[in-house]
């Protein structure tokens, strides 16, 4: 870990080299990350990736086989859950059904034997923070999902938690409520400025909620970065494909260009990382594809190859094209060269085609039909070492 620079906020939570096995199956392998004061980190991963286990280890509900958990510089790895002072917002909110809203919120203070006056004051403040003053005498079952979630958050804020842990907090809600709630919670977290860790399998949620996102795959972290970084500069193929549709071209590094089966990309790669002859993968998003009917390209576009439009579908906000690339001259792209093949990993696994999306204005001003021949270029892409 690097020493924090002067203007960086202090580290609130660190997970250092955590590994966890359940019986013979390894669940987590050497997990490392920090959460800064006031920061929101999202752990993004498919179900079964181990992200919930990370959360439970930080909360003290599960013990790691190796590694340490630090909260504000204090090693809490050996401490039981009740002595850690973390706030967990469970997926089902876990509100105490036989307690009213105010009893739920005051619970943390009551068991700490605080004075009644102090509890009352804190509960009042939190009720107004989460805007549930008129519901204070209600029982959890009388509240909506969103209200229950706010009670759950207020209940943890009452004892000034070191860090807030959200376990798939929007999993049980419908899409509309979800979007609405996560904006509400994001705003609330900015106000209270408590470092938070969210768990989700929803990439859109991760990108919107997180100051940083850690992508977890099969028990290890693939990449940690800002939403912009992980979306636009994915470090691995998994990250690229997990965060939405991605086109992947396999190729080989040449002296001053990158060669794929049907195209040559005129790009200079970092000589430190890529040497001529290296196998690589070029990853680009559907929205990074630009199509035009003429050979004329903008200067910052990289020409890929001519292609035929194979499918045009209108998906609401944009138009989606499936393009089949064709070899530029014909014979250069011989069939034997299996080393350079072209694939689209998501959403459908169909080799030799790529997916492109076009915004509505462009789609209507330059209409394309099935069978049209176009020139395909890409505006930005990431190069990954091929394993």
């Amino acid at each position: 870990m690097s020493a924090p620079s002067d203007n960086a906020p202090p580290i609130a939570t660190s997970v250092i080299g955590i590994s966890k096995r359940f019986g013979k199956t390894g669940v987590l392998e050497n997990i490392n990350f920090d959460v800064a004061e006031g920061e929101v980190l999202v752990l993004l991963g498919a179900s079964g990736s181990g992200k919930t286990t990370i959360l439970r280890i930080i909360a003290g509900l599960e013990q790691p086989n190796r590694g340490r958990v630090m909260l504000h510089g204090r090693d809490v790895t050996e401490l039981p859950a009740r002595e850690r002072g973390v706030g967990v917002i469970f997926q089902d909110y876990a509100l105490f059904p036989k307690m009213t809203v105010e009893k739920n919120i005051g619970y943390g203070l009551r068991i700490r034997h605080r004075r009644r006056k102090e509890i009352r004051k804190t509960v009042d403040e939190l009720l107004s923070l989460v805007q549930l003053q008129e519901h204070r005498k209600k029982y959890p079952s009388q509240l909506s999902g969103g209200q229950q979630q706010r009670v759950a958050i207020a209940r943890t804020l009452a004892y000034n938690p070191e860090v807030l842990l959200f376990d798939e907090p929007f999993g049980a809600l419908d899409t509309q409520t979800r979007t609405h709630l996560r904006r509400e919670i994001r705003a609330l977290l900015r106000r209270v400025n408590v470092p938070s860790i969210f768990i989700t399998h929803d990439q859109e949620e991760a990108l919107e909620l997180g100051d940083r996102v850690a992508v977890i795959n099969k028990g290890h972290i693939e990449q940690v970065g800002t939403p912009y970084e992980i979306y636009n500069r994915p470090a691995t193929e998994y990250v690229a494909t997990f965060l939405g549709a991605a086109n992947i071209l396999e190729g080989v590094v040449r002296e001053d260009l990158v060669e794929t089966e049907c195209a040559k990309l005129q790009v200079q790669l970092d000589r430190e990382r890529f040497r001529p002859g290296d196998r690589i993968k070029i990853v680009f998003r559907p929205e990074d594809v630009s199509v035009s009917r003429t050979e004329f390209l903008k200067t910052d576009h990289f020409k890929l190859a001519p292609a035929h439009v194979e499918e045009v579908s209108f998906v609401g906000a944009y138009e989606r094209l499936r393009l089949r690339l064709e070899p530029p001259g014909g014979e250069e792209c011989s069939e034997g060269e299996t080393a350079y093949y072209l694939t689209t990993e998501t959403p459908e696994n169909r080799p030799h085609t790529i997916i492109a999306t076009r915004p509505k204005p462009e789609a209507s001003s330059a209409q394309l039909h099935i069978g049209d021949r176009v020139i395909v270029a890409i505006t930005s892409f990431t190069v990954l070492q091929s394993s």
Partner: protein
Amino acid sequence: MSTVAPTMRHVRGFDVVRPLSIGMLVFMMLPLVLLPLASIFIFGTSNGLDKFWAALTAPDAVFALKLSMATSFWATVFNVIFGLFAAYVLSRYNFLGRNALIVTISLPTAIPTAVAGFALLLLWGPYGTLGRLLTPHGFQLMFTAGAIILANIFVTFPLAFGVIKPVFDTMSRSLEEASATIGATRWQTFWHVTLPSLRGAIVSGALLTFARAVGEFGSTILVSGNLAGRTQTAPLYIFAKFNEGQIEAANAIAIVLALFSFLIFSVLFFARDWLDVD
């Protein structure tokens, strides 16, 4: 084509099956349950209320009722606490022999009560396995109120457990985990979070146990000695008076016991909803 004859089922929008089936249900219950119960009341009051009252307030009768209530009470207290504890252990921890324990706890319901009483005698009786060692030291458990409590505990053993355990099983683990992360000790979690959710189950488990214990006959008659005014419970009193031909005396207590179970099961029926209101 013949015209379709109107069926019995719907006469001008009136569903005939409904009153018919309800009527049939009540009719079937008449000779089986309702008439026997009614005859207790009819017979008991046929000689006038004074006689009924006299039979009810006879010293031995009052004693039998009091003894039944007291022994059932203590058996209930024990079984509810034990059931709570057993349910907690058996639904929270998984260990070798767990299922065997669950079966063993549930066993006493399947054992004939006379066998249960006999078994207790064989253990604690003057010549029993343990009793043989204790009797010379002046410890004689059988043929006392203690024996009745012991028999009641045995035959009602799984009742409270059986009601409480499913509630434990379905209780979300995250409630207790949430309480722990908030900072509560195990005891605080149990007291503030777990126990309130079990309120309904505890009350109904207790009522079931109590009702069953008050009515217990088979095991009690073996272990109590059936001494009037000393170890005679209400059901034993009914049996004894019936044998002596004092039908009115038996009947007065029968009425009390019948009313009592009616009361308990009404409470059970309505209180569950009331106790589980969130």
